[in-house]
């Protein structure tokens, strides 16, 4: 049963567990959420921002608040983020609050607080914005059972869980498939087990990291098997390249959807039946700070900044999520006043900086090379402002794929010394995720995005 705050008094009322409705009060809800955060949360109290004018236009209200970076949060957890008067220690002990380690996929890891059940509540609400997923969750494909395929909770290298039996990896309707840190080191037996367990669990919805599932799908195809999921696959956690999606679709014939969110803030956008990513109601407000530089290969590029609406502990106001998106302002806005997205373009830390000041996103690179036949994995590293390295993993002979990649990225990386070479794998991050693109130095984001004053990443 979902719930949402309905007033400034923080009354929580049940939300229909079926299809969510558009939220005509979205902007008023944002103002109330900010006012509540200012009132209740020691971090904002200590910062001393001017009180929010609830009746003012939302844009003006938001512009009165500084952007919130992970580094602002990191050193003040948990006490500064629990509503005044509540006992963080007691609530963590009771489970009313949950301490969560975020993935730190850019090296910026963060511990955060979730209200009990908050994540599941808002995620399910977001997923239901897709009518096919809602129908599947309501039993169209049989009793709803879900599997999760991503890094084990322990992340990379410090995992000491051994081999947990199926029963110990099931939590209600949820099955956690993976228990090894790096999918590139999965054994054949482990992959057979995962394929078997999809069947055994009667999985209707599979939520997966794209690369993890691509690896499993490659294995399944090689063994003449399929990804046995009755309903849908939902890709999240990381950037989904065309190559990953090709691999997945070769072993799974059902819908493959994108869900975009972040552990710190919740699910922001869910793919709709029109192929666009639509902002999900009641969980967040999203500002899309427009790029003010050239963005070769991407149009209407924006930096995502989000404000939480339904968090009691750790409400975030103007939190810099750190992702780039292509906005589709012409698409209908289905649930809130936030525009739809054409695509998620990867982390801003992943974007390659050109000598002419332009930014090249992971999405732009993938559009340039993603359709190359035989391309399996790739990673771009920009270690210095004047050079870029591209590692290419091919399914078969590497040389022709490397040559084609080299040719196709040349216009994107104009002015940069570019090295393209064959590889047999790309490295996993400490978070257990894979990055297709990495910039190894910081840039002043306020030079690149409107209204991004003071942001350095």
């Amino acid at each position, binding site marked *: 049963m979902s719930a949402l705050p309905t007033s400034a008094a923080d009354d929580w009322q049940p939300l229909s567990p079926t299809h969510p409705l558009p939220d005509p009060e979205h902007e008023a809800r944002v103002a109330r959420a900010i006012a509540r955060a200012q009132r209740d949360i020691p971090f904002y109290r200590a910062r001393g921002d001017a009180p929010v004018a609830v009746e003012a236009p939302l844009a003006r209200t938001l512009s009165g608040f500084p952007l919130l970076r992970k580094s602002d949060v990191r050193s003040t957890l948990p006490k500064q983020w629990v509503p005044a008067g509540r006992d963080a220690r007691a609530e963590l002990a009771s489970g009313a609050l949950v301490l969560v380690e975020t993935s730190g996929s850019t090296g910026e890891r963060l511990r955060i607080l979730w209200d009990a059940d908050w994540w599941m509540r808002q995620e399910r609400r977001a997923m239901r914005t897709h009518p096919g997923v809602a129908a599947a969750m309501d039993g169209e494909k049989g009793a709803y059972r879900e599997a999760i395929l991503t890094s084990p909770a322990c992340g*990379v*290298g410090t995992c*000491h*869980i*051994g081999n947990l039996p199926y029963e110990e990896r099931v939590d209600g309707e949820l099955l956690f498939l993976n228990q090894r840190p790096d999918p590139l*080191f999965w*054994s054949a037996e482990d992959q057979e087990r995962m394929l078997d367990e999809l069947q055994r669990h009667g999985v209707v919805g599979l939520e997966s990291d794209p690369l993890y599932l691509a690896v499993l799908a490659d294995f399944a195809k090689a063994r003449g098997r399929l990804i046995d999921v009755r309903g849908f696959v939902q890709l999240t956690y990381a950037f989904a390249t065309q190559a990953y999606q090709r691999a997945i679709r070769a072993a799974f014939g059902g819908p493959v959807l994108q869900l975009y969110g972040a552990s710190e803030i919740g699910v922001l956008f869910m793919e709709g039946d029109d192929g666009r990513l639509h902002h999900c109601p009641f969980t967040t407000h999203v500002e899309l700070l427009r790029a003010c530089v050239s963005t070769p290969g991407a149009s209407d590029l924006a930096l995502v900044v989000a404000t939480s609406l339904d968090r009691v502990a750790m409400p975030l106001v103007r939190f810099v999520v750190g992702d780039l998106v292509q906005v589709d302002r012409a698409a209908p806005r289905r649930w809130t006043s936030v525009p739809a997205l054409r695509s998620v373009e990867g982390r801003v830390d992943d974007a390659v900086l050109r000598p002419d000041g332009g930014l090249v996103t992971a999405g732009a690179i993938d559009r340039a090379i993603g359709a190359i036949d035989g391309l399996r994995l790739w990673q771009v590293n920009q270690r210095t402002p004047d050079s870029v390295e591209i590692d290419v993993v091919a399914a078969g002979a590497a040389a022709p794929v490397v040559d084609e990649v080299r040719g196709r990225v040349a216009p994107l990386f104009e002015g940069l010394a570019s090295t393209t070479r064959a590889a*047999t*794998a790309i490295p996993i991050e400490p978070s257990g995720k894979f990055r297709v693109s990495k910039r190894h130095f910081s840039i002043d984001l306020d030079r690149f995005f409107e209204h991004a004053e003071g942001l350095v990443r």
Partner: protein
Amino acid sequence: MTDRERSAIDAFAGHLRPEFPMLSRVLEGQPLVFLDSASTTPKPRAVIDAVVDYYERCTANVHRGVHALGQEATQLYDAARLEAAGLIGARPDEIVFVRGTTEAINLLAHALSLGSADEVVFPASEHHANWLPWRARARPVPVAIDADGVPQWETLESLLTPRTRLVAIGHVSNVTGCIAPVADVVRTAHARGIPVLLDAAQSLSHLPIDVRRLDVDFLAASAHKAFGPSGVGFLYAKREHLKDFPLYQVGGGMVAMNEDIVGAAPSHFVPREVPFRFEAGTPAIEATIGFGAAIKWMRGIGLQAIREHDVRLARYLVSRLSELPGVRVLAAQAPAEQRIALATFVVDAPGMTQENVARALCDMFGVCVSGGFHCTHVLHARARLDGTVRASPHVFNTTSEIDRLVEGVRELAS
């Protein structure tokens, strides 16, 4: 050799030499001429920086640390495995990091669970690292060699029996510099269902290697002969072999779960996945990171470009030494295309052992070469050689340095 070829050697080497700080040393008032890369290569700045960077910025254990430094170190360490895999066209889960080629071969010898009746076939020219592990665990069956230490490959097939468990060959001889006919050996061995080990200690930094194309079952190599630090190397094994390897050393780092917990009867422990289950204990972290940097550096130059330089250098080195009276170059007739830039030779210098010659080259001319038996006692005995001198240039060596070696040898031989 034409002026054009000499210029090509010098241009290639001249471009790379500034990257090796050690090469600016002066020995006894003479500029250092380093011609001992078959023993160990000098290290380029990229490798030195990678090691120092680890010490200065992120000294931490790997696969254990949850703090930021531990994660940084782990990333750098793991990246080296991908570099090693990429260099030879393997998957990263087919690469086991070990201390070097010697440990790699010992690990394989352990994994094959050999008995005294099992036979391992290898050329009599092999380095001790590819001899003694087989001697210690099985029955060694050497392939005969000629007077210059070159294996008589045509006899290989006749040595294979139902008891043959492995054919183990050096990719490049550390004495003659000759490249083994790997494809023929693999074809012959595989026709009888016998796996093949390639000892790539001398080839890793000289030749492009693709294990899929060569179809070898195992490959052993060291970092320190490939511009990386000492103390690390790897064993490549095809996945279907590696998954069946018995555990090697056990302890921290290789275990996913120790279930001897409740104090009752011991239960068991769950090893980590391949290849980590074969890497117990804290590894040579900084050396491995440096190895990754070395491979990246080599690949940045291009192994094919290195090979082209190597062929020219081999031609120049062997032809110049061969023209000297009183000097015998082993396998001098082998064409440059079938060898690396390495020449082992005997100097007829009255009253001097070959070790004396090597020392004199250093002390009198600033030329560093190897002298002695190069861990190949059997080869030297069968070739009736009481030691040899070995010159092994690499990417940074110029023709004028070869000329200095030649002038030094000429002086000593006269």
